[in-house]
């Protein structure tokens, strides 16, 4: 499986590309930027993760895997990993299941309806996350929207505790992930040629059969890609769990931030961060392979 260890392979390919034609120089700024501000720092991260921590922000160059071992074996951290995975899987499944019908609806909508729907998806997409989290504070809080409403109607006697719970974390992550998942799935579904469905109906398939045989089967790659992205982002998100969760809800990202900003144990923090990075990158590669395969067979 291609990992960062493939670096030499890429570098060789890059060199080939640059030597091939002058035109390719147009990529110099972007590749340079990615190299200097991303790949090299990531490599730096990797190196630091091998260092020995001495305490209070001091560490020695070394080549130890202690950080990784600690993170992957210590029961406390295992619980954190497990919790993060649990939340990520939950958020991913809900977003895919609830998002699929919406994506189908929007991809088949026309004219004004479609534009409005797309707008309603784009607005949260570009609105920054912190602001949306604040909105959830107001909705889920003790004196917030839902509680006030339910109290007034008389459905409950005491305010429900909905914030600083796993529930609020899941809700916050869903809010973050939905627009992206929706757009990914919508774009895949729009690529499905509707005459295929007509053909299926013409040949004897009922509405449901034609949906299943054509639309559903052809939309699976989009669903998978969307799911993978939802998973990676839910796992790596920091603001949502730190604000909408209590101290009992610790995710990998919270651990990392803690180690790096508070405890100042950079090597250990780096190990965790790098592990997270590797998971994200692997997922990225899987989804890239899938979109390639999909592109191959959508060419008519």
């Amino acid at each position, binding site marked *: 499986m291609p990992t960062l260890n493939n670096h030499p392979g890429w570098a060789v390919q890059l060199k080939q590309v640059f030597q091939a034609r002058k035109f390719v120089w147009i990529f110099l700024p972007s590749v340079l930027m990615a190299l200097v501000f991303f790949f090299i720092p990531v490599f730096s991260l990797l190196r630091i993760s091998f260092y020995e921590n001495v305490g209070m922000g001091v560490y020695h160059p070394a080549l130890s895997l202690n950080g990784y071992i600690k993170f992957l074996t210590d029961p406390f951290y295992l619980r954190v990993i497990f919790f993060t995975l649990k939340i990520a899987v939950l958020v991913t499944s809900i977003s895919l299941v609830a998002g699929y019908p919406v994506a189908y609806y929007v991809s088949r909508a026309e004219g004004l309806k479609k534009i409005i729907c797309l707008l309603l998806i784009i607005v949260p997409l570009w609105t920054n996350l912190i602001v949306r989290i604040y909105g959830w504070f107001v909705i889920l809080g003790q004196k917030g929207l839902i509680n006030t409403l339910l109290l007034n109607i008389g459905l409950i006697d005491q305010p429900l505790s909905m914030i600083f719970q796993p529930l609020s974390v899941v809700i916050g992550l869903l809010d973050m992930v939905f627009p992206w998942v929706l757009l990914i799935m919508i774009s895949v579904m729009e690529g499905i040629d509707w005459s295929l469905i007509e*053909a299926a*109906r013409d040949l004897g398939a009922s509405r449901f059969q034609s949906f299943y045989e054509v639309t559903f089967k052809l939309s699976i790659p989009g669903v998978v890609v969307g799911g993978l992205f939802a998973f990676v982002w839910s796992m790596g998100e920091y603001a949502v769990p730190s604000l909408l969760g209590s101290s009992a809800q610790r995710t990998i990202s919270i651990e990392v931030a803690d180690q790096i900003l508070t405890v100042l144990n950079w090597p250990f923090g780096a190990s965790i961060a790098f592990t997270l990075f590797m998971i994200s990158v692997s997922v990225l590669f899987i989804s890239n392979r899938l979109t390639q395969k999909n592109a191959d067979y959508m060419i*008519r």
Partner: protein
Amino acid sequence: MAAMNDVELIGLTKRFKDTVAVDDINLEIKHGEFLFLLGPSGCGKTTTLRMIGGLEAPSAGTVKIKGQTVNGVPPEKRDTATVFQRWALFPHKTVTENVGFGLKMKKKPRQDIVRKVRECLEMVNLSGLENRYPSQLSGGQKQRVALARALVVEPAVLLLDEPLSALDLKLRQQMRFEIKRIQKNVSVTTVFVTHDQTEALAMADRIVVMNEGRIEQIGSPHNIYFNPVSRFTSDFIGETNFLPGCIAAQEGDTVVVELNDGGRIRAQRTGDEPCPTDVVVGIRPEQISLSHQASTATENVLRGKVMDVTFMGSTQRFQVAFGDRMIVVEDVVGAGSESCWHPTEDVYLEIQPGACLVLPA
């Protein structure tokens, strides 16, 4: 009982927002017939086809298949199968799965499906490609898979929506022959939509010429070509020179028309128009021959000037100035010598008697 009509269209109309795509079409299609819907883009032929197949619901009128009214019956329950313009092959299914799809939907047993698919693929000359995916096939092969897919379900009516328009010329000509052969073998009632008149003339049993949602003319290819009843049909099919004039006399079964640009034409009488009536005389380029000598005849000979000669291989095309207009003439090239016509030369156009059509102005 007379030969059964497999398809009947009665007063079929389709309106989209503020346009009428199909306007009161009445048509009967006999069993086993190869019928063509021919017309320019936007004339409503595809919409009509789709209404037969159930992919569009009529705004008014009735569609009957094998005597049963099928209005309101969804496409999967109709006994029709369509070959789409872009073939609409399922990209994620193999050729076998594509062709067998209709049978799978009918819940036929597996062995039957396998057998029938194999037979059908043989019939369209595609044996050996069972496990390929559409993206691995050439245009002609995709075409045949689409055809096999429609034929294997043994529909009462086979519908083809310009299936050859995406192929290049040589392939198109080849496929025309194949489709005609298969249709004859299977003897399925077929409706073929096209804007290409060569296709229609070559393959059809009967042609329905459509324009702006209405039927212009129905007839055999021969009939349509040589006896168009309207200016549109005669213009759309083949090529026609239109010369305006006025009916001067009617004698028996012929009329004499005085052309506005000079000369007289005697032609078959087609109607009962009193004289004088403004008419247009239609003459096909290949029905005119050129002569250097003046003729003694007072009718059906016109005088003009050759303006341009184009060598077309088996024929020559002449642009002849006649009054204010240009007449196009197509004459066979004599063996051996080069063209003996030069621009600005005076020439006499001899028109075959009986070759002119008198059409309303």
